[in-house]
């Protein structure tokens, strides 16, 4: 055994305790409330929203709807009476999530044999048999409709893609990809400030970009009537939904 400078045997020093990072606790702090639970503004009876939420939770207990964002790659299998195996599997990138309540939809886009295909699925439709998230990620925008006018390489995904693993406690990665576009004309004038797109690498001349700013409405962000603060509503609904799902 080692001798210290005194010559006497050194006092036993226990090894340092390992620091346990509890990943479970970190995961509980992270909450994801699907956007279709948030009630829209308007004269809607809260009882109707309550009944709709009950139905949505009931469906989620039987069928797992995973967490996904606009920009994640999903594979959806639906029941199809006219297909060989009576099922139809489609892989694509989610470009838009619309609708509230039971009628919530999401649009998947893919390019198959040089033909762009977009399919709009209803989240709560009973014909959907499985939704798998192959790659969970966010993009810089909420709406990726501009992929229609982008080069096809940005919308092609392999139909037999392997799922990319995502650890539960990590934050959702944001893909800061800037997409290159086909030459103009586009289906919409994406350079205009009303679309507020950050994910396109505009290769237009500076003159055109300045002229597009003519349609900017800088007063909109200060308009108090358009403010819709959903933080408190979200917390209430999150509590309700998570309690029901645990039962």
């Amino acid at each position, binding site marked *: 055994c080692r001798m210290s400078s005194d010559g006497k045997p050194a006092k036993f020093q226990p090894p340092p305790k390992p620091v346990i990072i509890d990943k479970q606790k970190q995961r509980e702090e992270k909450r994801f409330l699907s956007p279709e639970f948030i009630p829209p503004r308007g*004269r809607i009876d809260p009882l109707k929203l309550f009944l709709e939420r009950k139905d949505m939770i009931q469906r989620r207990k039987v069928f797992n709807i995973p967490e996904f964002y606009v920009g994640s790659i999903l594979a959806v299998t639906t029941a199809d009476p006219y297909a060989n195996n009576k099922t139809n599997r489609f892989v694509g990138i989610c470009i838009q999530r619309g609708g509230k309540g039971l*009628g919530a939809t999401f649009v998947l886009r893919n390019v198959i044999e040089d033909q762009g295909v977009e399919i709009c699925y209803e989240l709560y439709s*009973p014909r959907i048999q499985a939704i798998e998230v192959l790659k969970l990620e966010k993009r810089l925008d909420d709406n990726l409709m501009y992929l229609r006018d982008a080069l096809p390489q940005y919308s092609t995904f392999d139909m037999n893609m392997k799922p990319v693993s995502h650890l539960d406690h990590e934050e959702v990665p944001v893909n800061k990809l800037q997409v290159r576009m086909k030459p103009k004309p586009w289906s919409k004038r994406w350079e205009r400030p009303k679309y507020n797109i950050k994910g396109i690498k505009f290769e237009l001349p500076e003159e055109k970009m300045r002229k597009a700013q003519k349609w900017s409405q800088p007063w909109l962000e200060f308009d108090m009537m358009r403010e819709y603060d959903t933080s408190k509503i979200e917390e209430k609904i999150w509590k309700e939904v998570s309690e029901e799902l645990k039962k």
Partner: protein
Amino acid sequence: MMPVWTKSGKKHAVTLLKVQDCHVLRYISKEESGGKTSKLLVGGKNGSPFFKSEAAMEIFKEAGVPPKQKVTTFNVTDDAIIKPGTPLYAAHFRPGQFVDVTAKTIGKGFQGVMKRWGFKGQPASHGQTKTHRRPGAISTNKAAKVYRGKKMPGKMGNIYRTSFGLKVWRINTKHDIIYVNGSVPGHTNCLVKVKDSKLPTYKDCNKNPPFPTFFADGDESLPEDLYDEEIFQFTDPSVTYA
């Protein structure tokens, strides 16, 4: 309005109607009313007593019921008479039944002939002078007058209209809600009258409805949700085609 799916995977849009504090107010016999059948006065949602006439308040006092916002008459046969003061519930209707819904349409105010009656108007260019949405000719030369009921601009909407033959998909007995197929006249949260359908195709559709009505203090206790046979319930697994 909400989506509803059938077991074959088809989607239908459904309107939710709430039965809120409905009571039978008065029984009017055949001779008194002068019609072919006796009538029952039924009152809807509870409202304030301040803007009601004395005569109306007397009816509510006689029945022993708080003042109602909407009062309607139903023509009833003699074996379906109910005692005034009994509450009416959504369980009076059953899924699979067909129903007519009457309500006042959304008022659009004074409207022109194109919106009100669907006239085609005139072209936007090619020499039209100040004439793009006008009715054009209103009668012929020989008639020498304008017929009564000629379609002209005027106040549109805010009149009673009925949608016939709406299927009842689901009934919630706890909150008294009827899920009725398709759309219904009126704005959101407006007062509505629901009757058994008068269409001849649905004459024999009511198999054993609660007659004369569903009494809450009776012996039978219904489950919270009553579904139609074809509806897809969310407790079942996803639909597959064999």
